[in-house]
């Protein structure tokens, strides 16, 4: 392992001197969640430049420079071996370590779950509070959902609930709506309706200038608005004339459009539904989708998600344990609890006794500050307000090593490419080494 660091430094120097410039096409992104795989990236030594098809989300995350190559213990550079051994030592006699972040590729999650199984840890994906809104609805009543290629080729009406699609994924409209469709004569005739939140830009405006319809309300009013919309879809009588500032007549028009469409799609970002018991709103809209399918047409849900390994975490945890990525191994077998296994709660209330933070994608996604022993396996360039006991910089999947990442629709796992020779170890290699050192 010591050799690995040396090799890494040597590689970096060689590349800098040699200035080997290449352009790589059809690069898939693990960052944006919508599976863009048409980026062109210029590789100059270890620096990357997005040449084509970048966006506000992907470009900075690809171009983030490597600053750390050396692991640290208490802030001092050490060999990878030493850092791995120190991490194992910190974990050795813990009773309830928590592994947070959980942002890596499939192999990274495999290594993470093996380590958690070995040391009886709690595994908790950092965006689970948002994802929980979906899981609770799914596990209570289910849903009828679709995937991006069906949206692209069939969707004639997109209803957005309480979410800003283009801020979430800047290229969503360009790639999946304002583009050729197999089953629509004129894809620019697609209808877009925002319910709850107004869009932050004009990406939802069709190429021929048709603007989206927008019906704004407070985010916290969405439960009420969705309940009325579903009631209207089911032809229930509504006596009120307006709900949370939206005219019932407007909601009735949306219900009618949904029923008149051939293949409408209802989309939402679970993390944007920032109010208590938002799972009931996800359930309400998912049940509404089912209701529409019982009225002689098709309609599907499309949860927006999947940034920086969220879907990957839940998928791999799903097949490894049966449960989503908020699962503990402290009794020797996996136990899922979407509330009790919240790592921030466990850190705050003193139940946890060590923190492992794994985030290979984003230097801004730093661990919560805690006085507990802290091990960070993070993207090179991460800075901390409180230096962790152990920091091991790792490569980013899809940049420094090949890998797999799930798209938002949970069906397509994209094959991530290795773009440069940075010598940084992968998340999987580091976590496997820690497990073996235990």
């Amino acid at each position: 392992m010591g050799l690995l660091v040396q090799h890494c430094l040597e590689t970096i120097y060689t590349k800098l001197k040699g200035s080997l410039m290449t352009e790589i096409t059809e690069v898939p992104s693990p960052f944006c969640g919508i599976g863009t795989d048409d980026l062109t990236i210029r590789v100059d030594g270890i620096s990357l430049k997005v040449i084509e098809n970048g966006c506000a989300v992907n470009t900075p995350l690809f171009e983030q420079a490597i600053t750390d190559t050396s692991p640290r213990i208490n802030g001092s550079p050490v060999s990878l071996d030493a850092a791995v051994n120190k991490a194992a030592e910190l974990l050795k006699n813990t009773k309830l370590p928590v592994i947070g972040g959980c942002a890596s590729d499939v192999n990274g999650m495999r290594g993470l779950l093996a380590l958690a199984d070995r040391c009886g840890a709690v595994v908790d994906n950092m965006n689970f509070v948002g994802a929980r809104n979906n899981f609770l609805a799914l596990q209570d009543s289910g849903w009828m959902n679709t995937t991006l290629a069906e949206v692209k080729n069939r969707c004639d009406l997109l209803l957005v609930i309480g979410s800003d699609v283009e801020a979430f994924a800047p290229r969503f409209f360009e790639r999946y709506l304002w583009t050729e469709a197999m089953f629509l004569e004129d894809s620019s005739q697609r209808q877009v309706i925002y319910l709850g939140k107004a869009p932050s830009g004009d990406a939802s405006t069709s190429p021929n200038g048709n603007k989206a319809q927008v019906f704004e309300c407070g985010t916290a009013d969405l439960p009420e608005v969705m309940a009325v919309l579903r009631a209207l879809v089911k032809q229930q009588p509504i006596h009120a004339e307006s709900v949370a500032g939206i005219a019932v007549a407007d909601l009735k028009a949306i219900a009618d459009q949904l029923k008149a469409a051939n293949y409408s799609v209802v989309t939402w970002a679970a993390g944007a539904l920032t109010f208590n018991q938002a799972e009931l709103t996800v359930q309400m809209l998912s049940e509404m989708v089912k209701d529409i399918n019982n009225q002689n047409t098709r309609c599907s849900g499309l949860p927006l998600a999947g940034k920086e390994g969220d879907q990957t975490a839940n998928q791999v945890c799903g097949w490894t344990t049966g449960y989503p990525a908020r699962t503990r191994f402290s009794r020797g077998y996996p136990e899922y609890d979407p509330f009790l296994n919240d790592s921030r709660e466990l850190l705050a209330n003193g139940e946890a006794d060590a923190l492992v933070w794994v985030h290979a994608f984003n230097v801004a996604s730093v661990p919560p500050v805690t006085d507990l022993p802290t091990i960070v396996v993070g993207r090179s360039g991460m800075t901390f307000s409180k230096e962790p006991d152990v920091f091991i910089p790792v490569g980013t999947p899809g940049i420094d090593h090949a890998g797999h990442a799930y798209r938002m629709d949970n069906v397509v796992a994209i094959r991530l490419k290795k773009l440069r020779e940075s010598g940084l170890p992968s998340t999987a290699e580091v976590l496997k080494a820690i497990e073996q050192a235990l």
Partner: protein
Amino acid sequence: MLIKLTGGTVYDPAAGVAGQQQDIYIQDGRIINPPAEAKPDKEYDLKGKVVMSGAIDMHTHIGGGKGNIARTLLPEDHRADPVARTHICRSGCGHAMPSTFVTGYRYAEMGYTTGFEPALLPVNARQAHMEMGDIPILDKGGYVMLGSDDYLLRMLTAQKDQKAINDYVAWTMQSAKAIGVKVVNPGGINAFKFNQRKLDLDEQNTHYGITPREILRVLATAIKELGVSHPLHVHGCNLGVPGNMQTTLDTIQGIGGLPMHLTHIQFHSYGTEGDFKFSSGAAQIAEAINLNKNITIDVGQILFGQTVTASGDSMRQHANHKHASPNKWVTMDIECDAGCGVVPFKYKDQNFVNALQWAIGLETFLLVDDPWRIFLTTDHPNGAPFTSYPHLIRLLMDKSFRNDVLATIHPEAQKMTTLASIDREYSLQEIAIMTRAGAAKLIGLKDRGGLSAGNWADITVYTDNPNREQMFEKPDYVFKDGELVVVDGKVVHVTWGTTHVVKPDFDPSVEKGLKEYFDRYLTMKLGNFKISDDEITEDGRGSITVHPTV
């Protein structure tokens, strides 16, 4: 290392051995002829034991997105069967849709050494292989799903010739790393996206004007012409619909003598007689199977209890959601490629329909004459979890046990089945054919499923026991590639199996049309779609075994 298995009673239908006492020698993972100087490093005294090759499940949903949806959907089912970590095994969960590691352990612990995922969606094949990559001990493989993909339907509408279809099928098999091709509700998953709610064999897709019969014909022809051993694997039209027996009979006739495998045929063998307008079509179906030697089937037996159905058949699963128990369910339309539906089911012996489904499956087993053309499956987890196989084997091998259970099911269902009058009991040799030699032959595994020299040493040793359920649920020993992995029904050593594929030839120019289609209509680049070998092997434990075409 030379291992000798001494004096066991061997059932090896592939070599025509039916219960003879034989010694078996293992070296370097394979079975060898008795060496001139036999000084084994390790010898197992198997006198009085029953020896078979490792069992092969030719249709079991062990990898892929719909299985993971099923897992996510049912935390309460996992909580009832937690599986703790041991010094050699990972933790996980069991019951209806076990975690990947537990899937491998539990299959091995009942003497199975190979399993095939029957529904590899091309666009989701990567996930299926990654999940199967986390299933220890077992060899695995998959049948790639075609027939509702818009690319094929566009080709049919454009009246592309059979050669072009063959190229596309071969390209898809190679891209998805498959060993067979499956079609699910031919064209029906696609039709559901156009709001059709049923599709009979000769009913047209409203957009393409193509019928299921045409899809079956071109795909079965492609498989034959490409030389793929495993015949087209067919989940027919109208799954679960009373009266679908006629659809199934028409499907058999419609294929015109081409090799075809009809899967989970129990779900496709229903009549409409009786007070409840639901009756057994098993006798007619079995008669057709017996007459048409080009047809093979697996049964998809249901067994009573909680399970979850996970199918590519979004159209029929949507219709079946009203039977969901517990009442939660998922359907998905997928990538102009396929779809899926996940519906939890609780099969009840006091429910008339469920009770008769149980009887229909058993009638099918007992009325089909040739054990080389019928396979033991529950369509895991759809009819029952795979862990119920030992119970199913006892039902087949023990008439008095079968009749005891029959006497407890819904009384109207008892009146509607001929089961009590069927005397047949499966022999150990017939079980070995269905679960070993026949499955290996069907899929084209030349050196698995047999115990003669040259075969890989996948071997299961049982203690003979008149209670066949007890016998088959706890083998004394299981060897995988010559390594002892199970003793007394418990995993003692964890190995990693290979992934079986075929690589039928195609004209590389097939990618020209595909690339244009991908760029115009799909959401990933053609080059990023194809699964490379290293995706399966890069973790250091997976491997790929390529089988020849015929």
